[in-house]
């Protein structure tokens, strides 16, 4: 490599190659990227430092200065006003059941399509694929009417059932493509040993595919946590609101006090950020799996 560089003395390119070898290019990239990363975190940082200020501190020193002291008044006041603990509990229940039911349905579907290779599977997969492209607006009014008709309007189960089924369209699509590459020899060996399809599902396929299922469950949980339109329409009463919904619809109802607004943003961000820190690896893997199989 070094000799190749010497043989090619064309000025600018060689200069750049040298730069690279000395690592200057890497240092420049590092400075640029750290600046970008800090810019990206800046809104979050602003929410943190202003949420703990007193209104007086904010008026005197503005938003950019560090707080004079740490006060949790605004955070506590906002959390109590919107009953934030209840919203978090609602979001946890809804997201948990969507992830659970969604993953079970996805897995059963994918087992038939990817392992069973049943007839017509390409058509069925295409239908599922099209389904998760339909915008929520194209379904919401009939779902609202149906939820009212069966008595699930304003029950968290309406959102759970609808989202679990809708997300399982994506899950089926993703798991089927993973399962269709499942090693044939393992399945054949199990069949020769006399294992039926149900035993194969539990004892052979499920243990091997479990990491992918966990990625899928994490994605479903996050999507449910962040979902807005279905809860907005199907969960009108205060007691059933999710975190995403509570923050979305109460905007402007609070005081115009900027520290309370910062506190609201911070309180809304917090569960997601905690979740992100814990599941960062799974999530990033999930994003890549979801985009390019």
């Amino acid at each position: 490599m070094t000799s190749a560089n010497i043989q090619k003395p064309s000025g600018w390119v060689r200069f750049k190659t040298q730069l690279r070898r000395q690592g200057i290019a890497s240092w420049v990239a590092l400075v640029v990227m750290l600046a970008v990363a800090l810019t990206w975190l800046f809104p979050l940082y602003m929410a943190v430092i202003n949420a703990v200020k007193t209104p007086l501190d904010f008026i005197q020193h503005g938003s950019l200065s560090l707080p004079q002291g740490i006060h949790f008044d605004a955070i506590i006041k906002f959390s109590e006003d919107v009953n934030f603990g209840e919203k978090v509990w609602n979001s946890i229940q809804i997201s948990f059941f969507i992830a659970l039911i969604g993953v079970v349905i996805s897995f059963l579907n994918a087992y038939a399509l990817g392992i069973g290779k049943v007839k017509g599977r390409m058509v069925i997969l295409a239908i599922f694929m099209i389904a998760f492209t339909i915008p929520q607006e194209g379904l919401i009014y009939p779902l609202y009417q149906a939820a009212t008709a069966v008595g699930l309007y304003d029950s968290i189960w309406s959102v759970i059932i609808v989202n679990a089924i809708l997300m399982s369209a994506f899950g089926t699509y993703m798991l089927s493509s993973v399962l269709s590459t499942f090693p044939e020899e393992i399945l054949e060996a199990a069949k020769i040993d006399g294992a039926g399809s149900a035993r194969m599902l539990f004892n052979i396929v499920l243990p091997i595919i479990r990491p992918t299922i966990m990625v899928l469950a994490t994605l479903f949980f996050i999507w449910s946590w962040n979902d807005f339109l279905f809860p907005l329409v199907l969960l009108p009463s205060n007691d059933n609101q999710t975190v995403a919904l509570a923050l979305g619809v109460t905007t402007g109802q609070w005081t115009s006090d900027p520290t309370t607004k910062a506190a609201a943003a911070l309180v809304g961000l917090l569960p997601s950020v905690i979740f992100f820190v814990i599941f960062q690896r799974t999530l990033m893997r999930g994003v890549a799996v979801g985009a390019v199989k």
Partner: protein
Amino acid sequence: MAASTAVAGKRKNHKDESKKAYYWYLVPGFLAFLVVVMGSFFFNVVMSFSKWDGFSKPEWIGTQNYTDLLSDPDFAVSFLHAGEFILAMAIIPTFLGLLLGALIFDLIQPKFGNAISTFIRGALFMPQIVPLTVSGVLWIWLLSPNQGVINMTLNAWHLNALAVNWLGDARWALIAISIMLVWIQMGYTTVIFISGMSRLDPSLTEAAQIDGAGWFQRFRVIIVTQLAPEISVVLLTTTVAALKLFGPIYVMTNGGPGNATQVPSSFTFFNYFTTFKIGYASAASTVLSVILVVLAIVIQRVQNREAK
């Protein structure tokens, strides 16, 4: 002879039966799916041919809603805005994501290790997992005209002329929301491109280095061409996301001021739940659905072609 065909037939039957057993696993999921998703969609399409307020008896008016939509300037303008959000959510993040992803993967990770590159990726990705409505609340506060962080900063730098009423001024609202959307989307594109780069054959880069190619040349020739599958998929999925955009618009401007930030979803929502023009809203959401389904089929084709 006759006996052997009978045996073969029997065996074939047996095999078919064992395959048929798998259909049972599909029954609960597919039935629920047909009823809830396909049923709703079908009902929505049917309603698009009616005039209905949601309570009284619907009146069948044929394709009237669709012809009305075609001549409704608000509907046309909502797609124009969606087009501008495609720039903010799909095109800019794809371009920057490739560049930043390459910087991280090619220059930072090898020299400074995983901890720093994970931190940078994490910082960029963080807005992706926050509910869009929470991001909306955060940015309303950052962008607020008098006490917002952005205008306070601009004033501190004596750039008072730039400290406009971001969300309250029809000329700026679209741009203000676009800035937030770039902030949200960058992590998605960057993370996908980095994971794509890790599957590239390192000997390609080495060969280019030996040939004396500069960094940017290598970026253009190797990374961009080799990542073509990821790029096309990311562009299409983010375009779909841009066309579906609803939460931030509803929270931040509700389509306003006037209809300066109206998008197809907020237009539809307004007609469903504010003016109760259910038939009209159904027609609008059907048009959007058809556009998105066509895009989905294109994604499918692209993925299949890349897989071959």
